[in-house]
């Protein structure tokens, strides 16, 4: 199967009600890897992810996949910072993306059960999704995104409100997904997590890509004073 990657942004810009949120941004996401988007609050991390995924309309420039956008849309998924729980049981929530793709009900429910087992959600299959704990909700979000076996997965601070144990579980799942061939692009405020997981870093500031490099050089020898300050935990304005 031909890959939808690389993803190429050329002078991509996003506005909302006349205010520029992001851009112009030019970058290329290679077919493999784990990209971490970091930066202070309001830097444009979430908007950049939404722009790439197609949730945010591009007001200028281009966001181009290797295949037509209609095809690319079906082979990617997004995990939100605040898990959006459908008012269904866990089993039905997991089966829903498969049903959207035309899979039969029985097959979708069976795959949902297998998926739940591999994500440690087997005991919650008949639970009401909105009633789960924060960590369980985020695990369900991740499972729901990965059940369609996306080629690329965008994650917007998925561990932002989780404790250490839940964060570790999510990180393990992400490493397994990457090992399985899923391209990952994630935003985070956790520098330790960025070091543990990422292969390359995009450092955002004031709606633009301020610095972009592989993870090791970024953390050992950042090129800008702002990146240095951010890594050191200083306030970056």
């Amino acid at each position: 199967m031909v890959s939808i990657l690389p993803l190429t942004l050329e002078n991509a810009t996003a506005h909302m009600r006349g205010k520029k949120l992001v851009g112009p941004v030019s970058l290329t996401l290679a077919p493999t890897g784990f990209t971490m988007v970091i930066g202070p609050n309001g830097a444009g991390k979430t908007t950049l992810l939404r722009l790439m995924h197609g949730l945010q309309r591009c007001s200028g420039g281009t966001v181009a996949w290797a295949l037509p956008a209609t095809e690319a849309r079906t082979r990617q998924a997004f995990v939100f910072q605040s898990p959006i729980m459908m008012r269904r049981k866990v089993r039905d929530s997991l089966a829903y993306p498969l049903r959207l793709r035309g899979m039969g009900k029985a097959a979708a429910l069976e795959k949902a059960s297998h998926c739940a087992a591999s994500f440690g959600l087997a005991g919650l299959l008949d639970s009401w999704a909105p009633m789960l704990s924060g960590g369980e909700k985020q695990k369900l979000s991740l499972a729901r995104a990965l059940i369609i076996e996306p080629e690329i997965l965008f994650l917007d601070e998925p561990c932002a409100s989780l404790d250490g144990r839940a964060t570790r579980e999510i990180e393990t799942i992400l490493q397994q997904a990457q090992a399985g061939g899923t391209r990952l692009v994630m935003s985070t405020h956790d520098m330790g997590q960025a070091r543990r997981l990422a292969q390359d870093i995009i450092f955002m500031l004031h709606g633009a890509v301020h610095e972009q490099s592989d993870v090791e050089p970024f953390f050992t020898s950042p090129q800008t004073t702002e990146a240095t300050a951010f890594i050191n935990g200083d306030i970056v304005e």
Partner: protein
Amino acid sequence: MNGYADGFWGAWVLIFTFDPALYEIILLSLQVTVSAVIVASLIGLPMGAWLAVNRFKFRRYVIAVLNALMGLPPVVVGLFVYMALSRAGPLGGFGLLFSPSAMIIAQVIIVTPLIASISHQTIRDLWAEYHDLLISMNATRGQRIMALLWDGKRSLLTATLAGFGRAIGEVGAIMIVGGNIEHATRVLTTAIALETGKGNFSFAMGLGLVLIMIAVIINLAIHIAGKTERASTW
């Protein structure tokens, strides 16, 4: 006070002796109202969902008009339906005037805006919650509407029940288009009006008690069957 007491006593006697005239009226009332609510729900629920997920020119005005139509005067609806179904009217050829079908048509017109408007408000809130997820999942417009209707079904029961409440208690329009004909188009509300006019208070009160009981029992039954409290997070 004696009048009330006699009325209540007479009412219970009619109910528990299974008075055939009373039960004929109850049955027709349920037949007309349930049919009207089913048709109005089939139109109003998808209409409300469609309005919630679509952006188009004059959308605000359409919603404002829909909300205004919730207060549509039943006698005016009755008059329009009467004119449409009368022999000289555009639908006169169907011969529906003074039939239960005419009453159902009038009730559908009265109840549909109510169901559509309440369901629009419910679905709009759910759509705000689901928007990013369903767009991200690449759901088609139809799939989005179906997901919202399915996941909002417990809240949408309220819209349907509001429609049922309005329809079962409606008198003006169905009096005009049904004619309140005995054994043909006489329903609870029109019969109450007639019996009150005749001074037959016990029968009128029997009908009134039944009307209230039907409303309460159906609401309770739907709430229990629909497990409307299940989605609560507290």
